[in-house]
């Protein structure tokens, strides 16, 4: 069930390249704008780099969330999925995993480039990658609940941001905080453990809440 859904999502994703590229294009455009707006000063940019990168990852993640269930909802395959006798959380987990692959993981892989643009010191980059790697799963999992709640609404965009962004606050604080502490030379393992904890809790709770939210959204 899980692998079947994963294969389907993967094929769909490969065939809609613009959707695949959207969050990444957004990330780099916004990074460039920050660099331009900041006057290109290396000190300023590197001081704010952890915050800028993490906030942009959050927003790019949000951008990709909208499409998470949209097409399946429009063509009715989401309804078929919900009506199946199989437990719903398995295919949902596959969908969330897919979302994480092309938003969270892709951004983690591109983060060194972003660090370069913002003059983040090279010795901090491994920490940045680590925080992104353990923090972004929580974003996809929590965001999926918001996406499931708003999938049936035509103008769900701003609402989705309002629902999801406050819940992203801890991930942002620990993620950007860990990188900043590394730059200041302070131990940051606690923040990284916290990110792991949040991702683990989200992994346990979110699939069931997403399933409940989808059932509710499909009622109307």
């Amino acid at each position: 069930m899980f692998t079947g859904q994963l294969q389907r999502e993967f094929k769909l994703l490969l065939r809609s390249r613009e959707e695949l590229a959207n969050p990444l294009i957004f990330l780099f455009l916004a990074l460039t704008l920050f660099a331009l707006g900041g006057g290109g000063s290396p000190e300023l940019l590197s001081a704010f780099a952890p915050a800028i990168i993490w906030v942009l990852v959050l927003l790019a993640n949000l951008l990709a969330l909208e499409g998470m269930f949209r097409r399946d909802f429009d063509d009715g395959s989401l309804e078929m999925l919900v009506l199946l006798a199989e437990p719903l959380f398995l295919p949902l987990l596959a969908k969330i995993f897919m979302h994480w692959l092309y938003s969270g993981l892709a951004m983690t892989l591109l983060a060194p480039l972003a660090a370069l643009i913002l003059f983040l010191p090279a010795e901090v980059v491994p920490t940045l990658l680590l925080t992104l790697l353990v923090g972004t799963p929580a974003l996809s999992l929590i965001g999926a609940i918001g996406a499931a709640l708003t999938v049936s609404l035509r103008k769900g965009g701003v609402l989705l941001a309002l629902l999801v962004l406050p819940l992203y606050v801890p991930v942002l604080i620990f993620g950007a905080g860990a990188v900043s502490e590394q730059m200041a030379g302070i131990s940051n393992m606690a923040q990284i453990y916290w990110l792991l904890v949040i991702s683990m809790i989200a992994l346990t709770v979110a699939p069931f809440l997403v399933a409940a939210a989808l059932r509710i959204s499909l009622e109307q």
Partner: protein
Amino acid sequence: MNLKTLWHRLGSPRWLYQMSGPWIAVLGWLAALLLVTGCIWGLAFAPADYQQGNSFRIIYIHVPTAIVSQSVYMMLGAAGLVLLVWRMKVADMVLATAVPFGMSMTALALFTGAVWGKPTWGTWWVWDARTTSMLVLLFLYFGLYALRQAIPRAETAGRACAVLALLGTINIPIIKYSVDWWLTLHQPATFKITEAPSMPPEMYLPLLVNVLGMYCLFGAVVLAGLRLEILRRERDTQWVRQLVEARA
């Protein structure tokens, strides 16, 4: 009446409508009495703070609103769980009526905090742990309110809000911890259940009175909203029609 029958009765909007009338009166008058007593006592008779002078007196509004706004969100989470598990209509109505109250209490707590911050900290706003977590709480309330407005069907809106309230309740402790991570400018909590307050009794007793008054006000407002909600949703039933005809 034992607890089990009370639980079943709570599922009946008609019973709740009849019971809530006297309760609103009791809670409303109690709230008025306590809040007026607490405010006069706190504003006029409590001694001035040795450091902050008279400006500390805003505590008598600030702390009750802040405490109640957090309690209301916890109650929303509980109501959401009841709605999702037992499909109790009353839980949905509580969810609908308590959100605006909690939202305004949070906004009031933030506002009074800003007013208090100006003379004592020298600034209207600081990004410290407690103010930030209250701000996030306000956004969570906004989200609940906006989600209900956005979904046209009332039943669906209620259950969607229940999921969101539940998620928020799980997340609030994490938000609190994460935000506490920053070194904080705010004083620690005024009341802790486990410790005696650090203020003298003549200062904290009026505060206690106001906190109780605020809870009574919350009860009265939610019950009053609940009655309206019951009438609106049950308007096609026999007993509501008879009620309207009897009034007319």
